């Protein structure tokens, strides 16, 4: 990346990309903006690795008897797809890239509170990813991404230790990032930037960071215990000495359900920014959107049991977890209604980031509502471990989180690189992704409702039509993801110069040149107004 930037001819101003050159200036940087780009490169790599496995799975499922791989290999494919996508792409996606880049800029600071810790978190991430990729290339893991005991701890002969260690290590990267954001947002806001003047993206990143710090250590200890149990053939989840494998499920989901909100909350923050900017209105109910982020983060800690309705959990616990899971729908719905109300009578423009935001709202709503089916104990008995669950969480994580991520990347790309991409291609890609996504996953709702279980390499032939539709959609989706990769890279070198505020957006990050100087601002900003002052007609400063 540094060489590409070095050849940009028109740029004479010193900014964070050309302040220093060479591989060392990147690997030893403490600049939050450069670290964001290091993360961007690494998670993009992981995204395409995880995506390649999804492609293989969908190809395999074209035939009822399986078209491509052995059943054991299929088990490894869905396991590694889940591990790579969840822990190494979705969890760090928005916080570690856009969050890293934007949090200091949105609060008017020169950097995060602990720049060296920030760099360390990237190295921790790389170390964890290395362990997991080692497990991948040395034969794979077939536990499922959940690492359930005693399958993971006693029965499988694959590289569970390497994969679990990778996820364990990667957890500390999340913790360090979350810690950094919390301290930065508390202690380093510019003069005048009160909590209620913060942009909504910051609120969602703050809520995410709370989950990072409080939930991640629990999966760390759970996986640590699995690794020990596997290494010493005895441990606290071992039924042979009276241990309870379901306890592992409790500890696992105590992290992994809040982790769903780690993935979706930053996307919600991005969408709040996009909807506001591209309808040229103040967000409807700013405090409701802000506090609903915090409410989601809080409630997320008390719903994990809805993953275990059929694991032998007490039915009374099931009642409570079911009710609490319904409660999460309230702050989620508040957000959807407030975005919609923000659009109402706004001056809406359909630029590429806005298309992603609108896609997010629709797909997240569908994913969220089907979540209620799964949170109801009675329907969950029928739908548990079927493709309905797969479709539900892909609507949240791909239709929601990935759409939000791509929308955010498109929105802040001119700020990050100083260049504009081709808007026509970007809108085209957004539509391709939307169509491909729905064609992939809507049939899976139907498959699940009809009773097709997840994690099987074969299926009855009456499910073939829907499976072929899903596989066809996945090919479209794959192409859709490659298009932005190409035109965004192209824009770094050939795109027109963006100017400091191509969207005419509000927010401190747009008040500094693109790309920003190493210290972010020419002069330390002072905030004297409420956020999102879109009341007067805007003139874009392109």
């Amino acid at each position, binding site marked *: 990346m540094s060489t590409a930037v070095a050849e940009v001819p028109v740029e004479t101003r010193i900014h964070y990309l050309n302040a220093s050159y060479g591989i060392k200036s990147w690997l030893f940087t403490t600049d939050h903006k450069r670290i964001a780009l290091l993360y961007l490169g690494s998670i993009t790599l992981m995204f395409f690795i995880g995506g390649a496995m999804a492609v293989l799975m969908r190809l395999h499922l074209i035939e009822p008897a399986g078209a491509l791989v052995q059943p054991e290999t299929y088990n490894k494919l869905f396991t590694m797809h889940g591990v790579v996508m969840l822990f190494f792409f979705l969890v760090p996606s928005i916080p570690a890239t856009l969050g890293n880049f934007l949090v200091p800029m949105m609060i008017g600071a*020169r950097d995060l509170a602990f720049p060296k810790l920030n760099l360390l978190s990237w190295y921790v991430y790389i170390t964890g990813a290395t362990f997991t990729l080692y497990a991948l290339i040395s034969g794979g893991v077939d536990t499922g991404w959940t690492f359930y005991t005693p399958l993971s701890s006693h029965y499988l002969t694959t590289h569970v230790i390497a994969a679990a260690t990778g996820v364990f290590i990667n957890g500390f990267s999340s*913790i360090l990032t979350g810690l950094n954001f919390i301290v930065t947002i508390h202690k380093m806001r510019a003069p005048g930037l009160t909590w209620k003047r913060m942009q909504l993206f910051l609120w969602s990143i703050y809520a995410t960071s709370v989950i990072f710090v409080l939930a991640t250590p629990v999966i760390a200890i759970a996986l640590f215990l699995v690794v020990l149990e596997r290494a010493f*053939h*005895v441990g606290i989840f071992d039924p042979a000495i009276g241990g309870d494998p379901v306890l592992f499920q409790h500890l696992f989901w105590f992290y992994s359900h809040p982790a769903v909100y780690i993935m979706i909350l930053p996307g919600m923050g991005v969408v709040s920014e996009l909807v506001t900017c591209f309808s040229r209105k103040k967000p409807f109910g700013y405090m409701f959107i802000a506090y609903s982020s915090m409410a989601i983060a809080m409630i997320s800690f008390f719903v994990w049991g809805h993953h275990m309705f059929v694991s032998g959990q007490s039915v009374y616990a099931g009642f409570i977890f079911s009710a609490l899971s319904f409660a999460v729908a309230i702050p989620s719905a508040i957000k959807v209604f407030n975005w919609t109300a923000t659009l109402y009578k706004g001056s809406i423009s359909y630029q590429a980031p806005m298309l992603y935001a609108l896609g997010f709202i629709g797909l997240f709503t569908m994913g969220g509502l089907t979540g209620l089916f799964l949170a109801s104990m009675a329907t969950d008995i029928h739908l548990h471990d079927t493709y309905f669950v797969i479709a539900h969480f892909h609507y949240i994580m791909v239709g929601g989180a990935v759409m939000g991520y791509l929308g955010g990347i498109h929105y802040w790309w001119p700020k990050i690189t100083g260049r504009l991409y081709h808007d026509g291609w970007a809108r085209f890609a957004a539509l391709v992704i939307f169509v491909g996504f729905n064609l992939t996953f809507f049939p899976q709702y139907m498959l699940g409702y009809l009773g097709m279980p997840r994690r099987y390499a074969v299926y009855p032939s009456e499910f073939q039509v829907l499976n072929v539709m899903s596989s066809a959609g996945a090919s479209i989706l794959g192409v859709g993801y490659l298009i932005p990769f190409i035109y965004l890279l192209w824009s770094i070198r050939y795109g027109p110069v963006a100017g400091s505020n191509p969207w005419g957006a509000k927010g401190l990050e747009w008040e500094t040149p693109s790309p920003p100087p190493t210290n972010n601002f020419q002069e330390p900003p002072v905030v004297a107004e409420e956020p999102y002052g879109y009341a007067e007609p805007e003139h874009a400063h392109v």
Partner: protein
Amino acid sequence: MSESAATNPLAAPPAHRASPALHHQFEELEQQYDASNFGMWVFLATEVMFFGGLFTAYIIYRSIYYPGFVAGSHGLEGDFGAAMTFILLASSFTMALSVHAAREGKRAMLVVLLLLTIFLGIAFLGIKFTEYGHKWHEQMVPGLNFNPSVEALRGAPGNAVELFMCFYFFMTGLHALHMIIGIGLLSVMTILAWRGKIRRDNYDRIEVSGLYWHFVDIIWIYLFPLLYLVGGRYK
């Protein structure tokens, strides 16, 4: 970075940013001090949840397999546990004095107190590993060498005692790992103090290390009764 000084006024420190201890991202020392302290507290919240998973599991199993946990607890050496508790509390005292010495800028005192804290930490680990050795001889190590005598079981089922010993090794082992990290941290601080790198304007690193050290002590304060005193040893 030097070329940016020409165009970017913040690259050169303004007059009020005179202190060399002030990192570039902060406006003033007080903010930096607050941030590093707050950062350590947030980290400790993470640690509470990290150990919390184990404590929760311990409490669940203790309620299910109480006789096995009592038998396992009575197999531990309470004198060792008491001695380790005393040593660790003493080390917390010397750590607190270290922070005071750093705040007052007393370099020699700081070095001596830090060395004393490290020494107490090593003494704790020495006793801990001696106890591990005893467990090995008593064949009380789950998975590797578990074949307890009839007296050691005290009538409780062997697998429940084994479960207790799993917790004993996991919890004290994880605690010992934190001690080792803490000793490493304090060793770095001692070297910095020895070289005169700890001053009144950057003693927050001693304070933050102290917070960590006290936290590890507090974990032990909970481990000691949970592991050594279950079932009323001194009735």
